[in-house]
């Protein structure tokens, strides 16, 4: 491939007009664990597989879904440590916004800033792009919102989206199942069913993670017990 000659430097375009490092970053994302998000009429749900490398790992210590602010949560597909760096930077930016305006940062603004950070790392010397795509879910004065941010720094607003290993099957499933007037509980059920589609092994509250935000504007991660309840409803 002529492109491979240009894959050494992030900041050099290949003749086909691509930045090959970003393509590789997207591949890293595509081989990460499946995660998805669904925007309901009264809230947003994000979910991910939580496959741990061994049964000896203490699953209560691992949390893939994190808060950026009290009303904005995030899940990733790809390299976990990279997502932690982004979450840390975004949290700081959200607090800086609050210090300046004494107002909670709108979801679009936080997504924009996070995307700007990711873009910076595609145009600077000596750094590599982030190997994660983020799904950012939030609820503010403009209602429930779901955004996906890619390693290139581009972001999109979605009604429902998936990323990671099983992305094409998951997206097809979501396209069929999604309705505009879905409520949050239906969305959680749909999210679980979508994860179940590509899940290898027995799905339970201990190997998936779900985060929801409703009209109360408080993002929270469901406990394994709550997930098991939803799973029972889905059966």
């Amino acid at each position, binding site marked *: 491939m002529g492109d491979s000659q240009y894959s050494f430097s992030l900041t050099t375009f290949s003749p086909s007009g691509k930045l090959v490092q970003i393509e590789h970053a997207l591949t890293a994302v595509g081989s990460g664990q499946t995660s998805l998000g669904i925007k309901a009429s009264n809230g947003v749900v994000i979910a991910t597989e939580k496959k741990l490398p061994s049964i000896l790992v203490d699953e209560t210590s691992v949390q893939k879904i994190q808060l950026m602010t009290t009303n904005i949560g995030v899940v990733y597909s790809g390299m976990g440590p990279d997502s932690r760096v982004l979450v840390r930077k975004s949290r700081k930016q959200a607090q800086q916004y609050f*210090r*300046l*305006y*004494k107002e909670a940062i*709108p979801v679009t*603004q936080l997504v*924009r800033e996070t995307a700007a950070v990711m873009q910076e790392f595609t145009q600077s010397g000596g750094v590599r792009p982030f190997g994660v795509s983020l799904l950012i879910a939030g609820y503010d004065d403009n209602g429930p919102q779901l955004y996906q941010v890619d390693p290139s720094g581009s972001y999109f607003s979605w009604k429902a989206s998936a990323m990671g290993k099983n992305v094409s099957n998951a997206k097809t499933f979501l396209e069929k199942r999604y309705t505009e007037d879905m409520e949050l509980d239906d969305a959680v059920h749909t999210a679980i069913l979508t994860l179940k589609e590509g899940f290898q092994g027995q799905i339970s509250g201990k190997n998936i993670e779900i985060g929801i935000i409703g009209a109360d504007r408080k993002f929270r991660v469901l406990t394994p017990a709550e997930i098991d309840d939803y799973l029972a409803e889905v059966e």
Partner: protein
Amino acid sequence: MSIFEYNGSAVVAMVGKNCFAIASDRRLGVNLQTIATDFQRIFKIHDKLYIGLSGLATDVQTLYQRLVFRHKLYQLREERDMKPQTFASLVSAVLYEKRFGPYFCMPVIAGLGEDDVPFICTMDCIGAKELAKDFVVSGTASESLYGACESMYKPNMEPEELFETISQALLSSVDRDCLSGWGGHVLLVTPTEVQERTLKSRMD
């Protein structure tokens, strides 16, 4: 002689029923000499938000330019106008940035917030906010203004009565202050319209 008294100024804002009024004097002086009688101290940030700046005239102008710059960027990024409370927090932050070399300005912020609820506040030159429900004053005539407003103010005044009250409070206070006066400028803002009027007063 204080730097705040170099140019002379008087600014006052009052809350009425679903409206607010903001007024200032028009004198620009250099110590005891008057050099202009049409100096603008009240500036529009957006249709429902005004800021009056008293103090050193050069800082009044520069600070206004900086704040408008910040607000325009905010409007472009967030695709909405700033709420008065948010703007007040911004002004406070901008002033505190210069904590050890401040702008010699005391802002008076007045606006209609969500659901057109009137909002007024003032702050000192390094950003200490003071929210009030009735009136706020600033400038070389501030002590007289406090007295005049305290005695003339009534809550829930209709726009016409509010206009009368704020004009009388302003004129009687600046008459007691040699550094401010030479006319008055009053803006009365309701959810549907803005009335701007110039007051004729003792030209001394």
